């Protein structure tokens, strides 16, 4: 009986050790304590508290944009960069904080669009929304 308890305990310890090891080295492990933002990323709560005027850029597909989008957002994606860029610039002014979003945490479209705005137009005051449209729909429900 004692041997059984000892072995069971040892197995539990080993299982705990393995799960902690996986948690610590797995690249997909979520952060339980704080959100780690990449350069230029902004949290929705911070974006909504901003006193600066904001222009939202929707970097998703045209189809998704037409289904629904953040009120006032402008479509600007790399499917049709040139024409959409011209439309965006008609509405841009240097006092605006630009926040770009795409589908979710996994997409990179907002990062690419933000990078091109910086590289091609030398705009600053550009951010990408952490969690993208998915976060907006969850927090605004």
């Amino acid at each position, binding site marked *: 009986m004692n041997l059984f308890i000892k072995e069971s305990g040892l*197995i539990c310890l080993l*299982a705990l050790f*393995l799960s902690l090891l996986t948690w610590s080295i797995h690249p997909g492990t979520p952060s339980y304590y704080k959100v780690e933002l990449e350069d230029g990323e902004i949290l929705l709560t911070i974006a909504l508290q901003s006193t600066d005027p904001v222009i939202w850029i929707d970097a998703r597909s045209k189809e998704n944009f037409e289904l629904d989008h953040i009120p006032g957002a402008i479509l600007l*994606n790399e499917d049709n960069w040139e024409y959409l*860029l*011209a439309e965006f*610039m*008609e509405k841009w002014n240097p006092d605006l904080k630009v926040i770009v979003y795409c589908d979710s945490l996994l997409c990179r479209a907002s990062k690419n669009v933000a990078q091109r705005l910086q590289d091609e137009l030398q705009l600053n005051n550009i951010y990408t929304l952490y969690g993208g449209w998915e976060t907006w729909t969850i927090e605004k429900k």
Partner: protein
Amino acid sequence: MKIISLVLIIFSPLLLQGQMQFQEIENQANYKFGDKEVRRIFKFKNDGDYPVTFNSITSSCGCTTTSLDKTTYLPGEKGEIEAIFTIGQREGLQRKKITVLTDDSDNSRYEFILEVNIPKIAEINTRLLYWKKDESLDPKTITIDFQPNEPIKITDLKTSNDSFNLDMDEVLTGKKYIILVDPGTARNSKNGNLLVKTDFPKDNPKIYFFHLRVQ
């Protein structure tokens, strides 16, 4: 002995791999100027001893679609996932993640990367000519340096606001152009777009927009 057996049982999930064996998980696609899309194939084989069904295949970008001949693969059966990446007006290094979910209890998730490097057709110094409130109204320049080896012509140049005067100089034939934009002398706030049409690629000539603004 009992301990060793039990430890092996604990470790065994780490040693197991899924039944589906893919030939590669990163696939670099070649691109040439003018391509509208890039297609790549990810080949796989069911190396296990029971059938595996694909539940879903998703991409990190709406620009990448995938297709599969069928969803269930018997032991020993081979198959292919075709990924089609639509270029649109993208530039630079593109890395699109494709996630495959199967009903294989040993390993139900696989991830692939489709990588395409899309070179710029032109190096352009800026897309925005902006005269700030306290800035003198001196003309500004746009430099367009075409990258392909073959010569490229600028076939049209026009603004949506005629109060901006334009002058174009072909510095290097079919290769490098400088466009001088003069906002005029009147100090009033105005803006406009500048449209530059080229003759490359032949079947879908590239158009560039620039924004002009005086504050």
